[in-house]
């Protein structure tokens, strides 16, 4: 077990030599092996992470001032709204405010006339190499055509750590927070998590 380091976040992995050097720096005989110390450190680190993130829930860090669009909103208006608000994704809700999906920049990029569109730069490259607007293929499309559905949603009491894991596992950047009936309460983005982390004085 002492060599199981998979629970360490990347970059914080402790090596035996780090511990050995630290033990050398402390005068006096420490009645513990580097391996045992590493095991304690690993468990303590996990515990601290859990404690710090269990305290914070989606409800506490979510953005509630969210622009939502409807399934039959034209993508042109969706793009305009996103541009105006400076956001990279918006939830799509039905008349009852239930979340049906999410539209993000990625959804736009993947439908544009740009092969293997990964980010904004591939769009720029596509535009520069072709005539006309790369957005032409989706002109006239509606939000429902582009949105990623079903939306990834979480409950308000979901711990931030679980949301961070969700982002990494699903390769997404935001998640809609919904009540039990699926109605939109807010949005948690990667940025919200970063802000919340800084605000709580976590070690960076």
């Amino acid at each position, binding site marked *: 077990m*002492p060599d199981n380091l998979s629970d360490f976040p990347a970059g914080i992995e402790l090596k035996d030599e780090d511990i050995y050097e630290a033990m050398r720096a402390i*005068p*006096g*005989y*420490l*009645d513990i092996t*580097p*391996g045992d110390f*590493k095991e304690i450190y690993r468990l303590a680190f996990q515990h601290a992470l859990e404690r710090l993130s269990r305290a914070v829930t989606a409800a506490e860090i979510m953005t509630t001032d969210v622009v939502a669009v409807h399934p039959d909103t034209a993508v042109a208006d969706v793009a305009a709204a996103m541009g105006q608000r400076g956001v990279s994704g918006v939830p799509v809700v039905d008349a009852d405010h239930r979340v049906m999906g999410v539209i993000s920049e990625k959804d736009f990029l993947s439908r544009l006339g740009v092969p293997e569109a990964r980010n904004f730069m591939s769009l720029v490259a596509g535009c520069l190499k072709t005539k006309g607007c790369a957005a032409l293929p989706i002109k006239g499309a509606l939000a429902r055509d582009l949105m990623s559905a079903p939306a990834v949603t979480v409950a308000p009491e979901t711990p931030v750590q679980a949301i961070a894991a969700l982002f990494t596992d699903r390769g997404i950047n935001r998640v809609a927070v919904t009540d039990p009936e699926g109605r939109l309460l807010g949005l948690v983005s990667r940025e919200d998590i970063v802000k919340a982390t800084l605000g709580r004085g976590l070690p960076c």
Partner: protein
Amino acid sequence: MLRAYFRKMASTTQSPPRVNLAEIFWSWLGGFLGIAAVAVINYGLLDKTSLLLLIGSFGASAVLIYGAIKSPLAQPRNLLGGHVISALIGVTAFKLLAPHLWLAAALAVATSIAVMHATRTLHPPGGATALIAVISGPQVTNLGYFYALMPVGAGALVMLAVALLVNNLAPQRRYPEFWW
């Protein structure tokens, strides 16, 4: 399954680093003064009496309370608690089981370990203290439960006093980590 069992005997880490020279010096000095204090009383003051103060397990205690002073095993609670509890268990084992000394010896040590664990007073020399109560012959066994008070309790107190005085003289050291 057998493979996994034997694999557990393989090394998983390395031995802790060697301490610096100052640490070696202070460990030596503490060990010398601690045992000297107990031995002077034992051979000087108590020579003409049937009383004892110095027992073998104090040599092991000296390693901990002067040589590994940060260890939980070396703290006052463990030193005093471990010795006195084990002494009581050792004397009891002898009283109940003599002349079956092999059984008394094994039970004394094993039970001492268990009770020291349960009372958070684990102190390895306590095992020796329990064993001594069983195997040392009339000079010790005649003491009965007084053995736990003296040499064991009193001797451990003297060793503790020296540990407090000497360990805290060293600039890099402080003792104890906790009292109780």
